[in-house]
């Protein structure tokens, strides 16, 4: 307690000025110690539940290791990676995963921006109602969303075929889950429905940070609505949009629930997460499954890296600490 008492009054005085490069005082040391006492447990837990397992996965991926034949365990180097990377199913899953990621994120940004604009412009009473409605999909369990969409489109229990039989291509006999294209359509629809609210709330927060004077000035100058959107609003929201896109892209890349429930990977709809799950948990091929897990992890790192390089997104400063 004494260390804390020593610290407390001084920080308020020092806070506005950035700490200088001076030799560390006892006070600073005490503060650092307290900081780590408080934040340490959370830090250790985070490391323990992610960094440790991924290192373990990397080790396991270097072994021929099957739980059905545990005594057969042997070091094989990068052989598992060779097996995975030469398997067409892996590349197909990667393709499907990327397809779902690109399609859902693209649709969600447009739809989410529309919703954000609606909420931004709505009068107060309406805004509350709209926000509440939009939060419902956010709060719903993904598996429930998957079942809801599945049953709507299902050939036996669904009603979509009856409602939309006037649309070319849709008839009472259309089995949405019997081929790749239509299956992916419903999978993406469920994913988009469930996650657009999150993106629209992030964009709404971004919208409210655009200085209103700029928009008003543009109105005075006679700019049309479209011009204002393109020249004033969007450039000022670039950072918010990029953060939203990156987070959603990484989330979409991990897609598992919707695919598992609707098709379980049938008709070429397997995604990477499902492939890893089936290899490790269902077929108990720990070595191969670990290799897929590591590859998936590297893909996520790669997407992050690509975004940061391409768009100069500084995540840390965007997300508060800066």
């Amino acid at each position, binding site marked *: *307690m004494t260390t804390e*008492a020593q610290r*407390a*009054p001084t*920080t*308020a005085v*020092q806070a506005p000025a950035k700490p200088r490069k001076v030799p560390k005082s006892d006070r600073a040391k005490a*503060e*650092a110690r*307290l*900081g780590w006492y*408080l*934040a340490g*447990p*959370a830090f250790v*837990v*985070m*490391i323990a*539940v*992610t960094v440790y*397992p*991924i290192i*373990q996965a990397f080790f*396991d991926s270097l072994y021929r290791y099957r*739980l059905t034949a545990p005594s057969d365990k042997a070091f094989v180097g990068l052989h598992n990676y060779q097996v995975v990377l030469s398997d067409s199913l892996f590349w197909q899953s990667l393709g499907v995963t990327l397809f779902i990621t690109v399609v859902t994120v693209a649709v969600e940004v447009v739809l989410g921006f529309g919703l954000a604009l*609606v909420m931004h412009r709505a009068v107060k009473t309406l805004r*509350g*109602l*709209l926000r509440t*409605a939009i939060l*419902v*999909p*956010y*709060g719903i*369990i*993904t598996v*429930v969303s998957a*079942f809801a969409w599945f049953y709507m489109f299902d050939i036996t229990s669904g009603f979509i075929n*009856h409602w939309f039989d006037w649309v070319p291509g849709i008839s009472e006999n259309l089995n949405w889950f019997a081929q790749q294209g239509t299956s992916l359509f419903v999978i993406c629809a469920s994913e988009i429905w469930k996650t657009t*609210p*999150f993106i629209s*709330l*992030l964009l709404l*927060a971004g919208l409210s940070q655009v200085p209103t004077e700029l928009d008003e000035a543009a109105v005075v100058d006679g700019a049309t609505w479209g011009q204002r959107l393109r020249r004033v609003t969007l450039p000022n929201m670039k950072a*918010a949009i990029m953060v939203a896109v990156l987070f959603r892209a990484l989330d979409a890349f*991990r897609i*598992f629930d919707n695919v598992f429930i609707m098709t379980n990977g049938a008709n070429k709809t397997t995604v990477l*997460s499902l492939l890893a*799950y089936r290899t*490790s948990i269902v077929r108990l091929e*720990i070595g191969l*499954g*670990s290799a897929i*897990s590591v590859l*998936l992890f590297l*893909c*996520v790192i790669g997407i992050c890296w690509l975004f940061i390089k391409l768009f100069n997104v500084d995540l*840390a400063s965007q*997300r*508060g600490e800066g």
Partner: protein
Amino acid sequence: MGAMSTRLKIGWAVITVVVLVYALFPVSSILATSFKLPSELNSGTFLPQHWTWTNYNQILGPNGTARDLFVPALRNSIGISLIATAIAAVLATLAAYAIARLDFPGKRLILTTALGVSIFPVISIVTPLFNLWRNIGLYDTWLGLIIPYLSLTLPISIWTLAAFFRQIPWELEQAAQVDGATTWQAFRKAIVPLAAPGVFTTALIAFFIAWNDFVYGISLTSTSRARPVPAALAFFTGASQFEEPTGAISAAAVIVTIPVVILVLLFQRQIVSGLTQGAVKG
């Protein structure tokens, strides 16, 4: 706003209806399905012709065929999610306090780690955990799910709370100390009442995330001992082998959705501010 033209009013009415339909249609669809008679499931209509509680009886009633699958799963889901949320809330509160309030080396490291963990592909750590849990006896236990759930709940809690805590007027603490309160008293009397809403909101968001989990739930459990609802739904079977479990699944889905909808209705404003504060510069 009083001088809103009729055309504008109609426009907003249309927009509101479109948004409401968008947000609520799939939910209403599964709600309607849950009240259908098993024999009417394939009627191809949206609304049931005869409303019935049959499906709810099946998952909750004393003689329900899916009762043994659903009720333990509901208990597991509530227990595991609440414990994982509580642990995350405590750890994140301490960490966020330090981040918002103290100057110490490694602050950025902690925030960056939280960010990294939150984008971590869950499935990548399932394989090693699956193997480890089987060896040390945590497979198919509550603890075996609570630990990995922290990887979902902790990072977002730290970010959200750190943003909340930065906005607290900490001078109050000094003021209380000047008035003769000890450090601990100052913290408890002046800061806790201000911080509590942020902690509550964070816990709510973390609970949603834990409640939503499917990957861990289906990979790290094998019986009703620890299997949570989302995973259990994938194991539902019909009353007979010729019957699809559509009705029972719909009813179960409605039951696990109700608490979410109630929480959203009650705390809409807080959830929105919590979600956006963690993500956009606060």
